[in-house]
């Protein structure tokens, strides 16, 4: 199966699924499939990004191997998905883990060499404020531009779109924030094995909301600094530290849980070529969380400047890789959920006008 073009295989599978339809109620992928009779590359890329790889359809499928039709939707959509990342992402998409590891190591080494040894909790004595803001500000801008280009490439591949409504944004946002498509109507998804479990959704929530809390912590700290003139370090019970601590716990617990599930997952439903991008993203998140909490705990000690250097280097590596690593799954999946919300509305309207 791996020799065939995943798009050709995807077209074959969707044709089989579209004449069965028993998986219709599992997730958004199958109703979206039923709205189509043919499956172009744009259609398959959209369906692949809509798929959350929960695998219920694989365990339910009477055509799964050893049946001669050999239907394996989650695996083939995973293969299509990673190819779509390569197609959309700007300037490049990188599957392998080595670039990520190399970046993290080089940044760390540079940071350690360049950072003067200080202690006593004054971060800016170690790394000047302007340097921090300059590097991360510039990187942030580049990341936003790269995401924008990728998103535009995804969105314009299917040219049937129209202006979106607010209700469609809110529906898609709800799907993103609740991971509705990993919940299977409350039963949970079939990961890491065929028994239903909410574990993956819960750990993903830890990672996702942990990431958001860390981002919120940094934003609040920036506001404190720039608008109020309150300089870091902040007290343990201050807003930036509380947010950062909770976020740090999130991006440690989430990735650790996801790693533990990965180790027990069913090899039949995954595309092993994605291990590099998955593990490097999980690894950088985890390293950001651990170094951040370590810095918080030891900020009053002599280790502060080194820890700050390592933490900033790891976060920078994570930051730099946001547009061309696993993180982009969130961008394209959110966009696919938005397109799904808009399509759903159109087909509901057609149904209503037929009945009325």
């Amino acid at each position, binding site marked *: 199966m791996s020799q065939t073009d995943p798009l050709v295989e995807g077209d074959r599978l969707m*044709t*089989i699924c*579209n*004449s*069965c*339809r*028993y*998986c*219709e*109620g*599992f997730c958004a992928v199958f*109703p979206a499939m*039923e709205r189509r*009779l043919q499956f172009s590359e744009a259609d398959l890329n959209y369906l692949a990004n809509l798929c959350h790889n929960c695998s*219920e*359809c694989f*365990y*339910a*499928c*009477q*055509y799964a191997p050893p*049946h*001669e*039709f050999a239907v394996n939707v989650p695996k083939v959509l995973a293969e299509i998905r990673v190819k779509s990342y390569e197609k959309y992402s700007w300037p490049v998409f990188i599957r392998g883990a080595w670039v990520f590891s190399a970046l993290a190591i080089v940044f760390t080494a540079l940071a350690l060499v360049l950072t003067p040894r200080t202690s006593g909790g004054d971060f800016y004595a170690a790394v000047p404020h302007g340097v921090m803001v300059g590097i991360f500000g510039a990187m942030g801008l580049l990341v936003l531009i790269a995401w924008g280009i990728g998103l535009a490439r995804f969105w314009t591949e299917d040219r049937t779109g129209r202006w979106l409504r607010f209700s469609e944004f809110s529906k898609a946002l709800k799907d993103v924030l609740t991971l509705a498509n990993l919940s299977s*109507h409350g*039963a949970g998804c079939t990961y890491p094995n*065929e*028994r239903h479990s909410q574990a993956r959704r819960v750990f993903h929530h830890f990672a996702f909301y942990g990431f958001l809390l860390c981002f919120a912590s940094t934003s609040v700290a920036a506001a404190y600094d720039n608008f109020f003139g309150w300089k870091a370090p902040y007290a343990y019970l201050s807003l930036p530290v509380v947010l950062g601590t909770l976020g740090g716990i999130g991006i440690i617990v989430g990735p650790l849980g996801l790693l533990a599930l990965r180790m027990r997952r069913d090899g039949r439903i995954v595309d092993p070529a994605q291990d590099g991008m998955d593990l490097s993203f999980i690894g950088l998140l985890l390293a950001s969380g651990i170094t951040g909490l370590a810095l918080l705990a030891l900020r009053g000690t002599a280790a502060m400047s080194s820890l700050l250097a390592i933490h900033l280097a790891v976060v920078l590596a994570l930051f730099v890789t946001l547009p061309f690593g696993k993180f982009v799954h969130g961008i394209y999946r959110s966009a696919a959920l938005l397109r799904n919300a808009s399509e759903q509305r159109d087909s509901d309207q057609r149904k209503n006008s037929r009945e009325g």
Partner: protein
Amino acid sequence: MTDSYDEEEYWTDLLRVTGGQTDEHLARIAIRSTPESMVWMKRQGARFQPALGGTLHLGRTNAFFLGGGKALMNAYYQAACRRGIQILYNAEVMALAMRGGKFESATALVNGVPAELRAKAVVFASGGFEANIEWLKEAWGEAAENFLIRGTPFNTGRVLKLLLDGGAEQVGDPKQCHAVAIDARAPKFDGGIVTRLDCLPLGIVVNREGVRFYDEGEDLWPKRYAIWGRLVAEQPGQIAWSIIDSKVTGRFIPSVFPAIRANSIRELAVELGLPANQVESTVQHFNASVRAGNFDHNVLDDCRTEGLTPPKSHWAQAIDTPPFLAYPLRPGITFTYLSVQVRESARMVMQEGKLSPNMFAAGELMAGNILGKGYLAGFGMTIGTVYGRIAGKGAARVADGSAG
């Protein structure tokens, strides 16, 4: 599900499709126990979903499993495992030891190794014999070579035969089965649901001679789809073709195999290898006898033919809009009706009408008690679930000594 489907209507439908070849007492138990069975199924982890997109007329009479039958079985197996029940896979019963209508033991090959399995009570749920082409040929003759089997190739009827040879009372005709017309390009075994064709009532069906042979619009499709397997089986070469035009594409669930297309009826007939003149004349006659009406695929509409034999009673529209499309049809056997006889306790009836003290039957193995012929969509699941539960409860009581 939408609207109610009560016992009387259900029973009337069953009486009509079986032509009276049923057992009212057993049938009414199955019908009446449906609501509580649904509750029980949900307790075991079964999940349901609304009628599937594109299915016709099924919303009122049928419940759909979320994920289909295999998802249901996964839920049942998981429920059994949670209760500590051991399941032997790759195991086939080869022989049964019975004495005076009482089960003593079974000899099974478990992973190829013979093992003797003894039990105080047993529920046989071993299916029919539809995958046993030789046995089908005993009933159907050489025509059976052209049948496609919609399910597993392992349904060879070995246990059914062992039971009948061992003194179980037989019920049903070996020729009767649930047979639908499926896409002739389907695999010999296990093609399952994706080979179904729902477009028959939307067009005409012709045989190898290019001639129509049955009213394609006789009744709503869920009440008629299961007669078409038999109808095609009775045609020369056990093959037929559904012919539609592009007015009706998109009105039925697409088949997994592409339609054969052409821009004229003549070209289509040539493509299909059918006598072109005859097919053209069949379509012309059909088109000429169509009486205008308000086409509505969802009800028994007033689009019908006049002066045509056989008539098309509903959904008759001229086949006049190219491209023209065709799907080849073969009989697809879902399951056979030849069964062991049971009473309402699901206990098996042995020779001279004696009830077995510890042998129960469930599912397809006993469905012929209720389905003498014909079929109602979903009724096999109803019988399987209701009598599976009855048989299980009965066997448990025998095994723990609370029943005689």
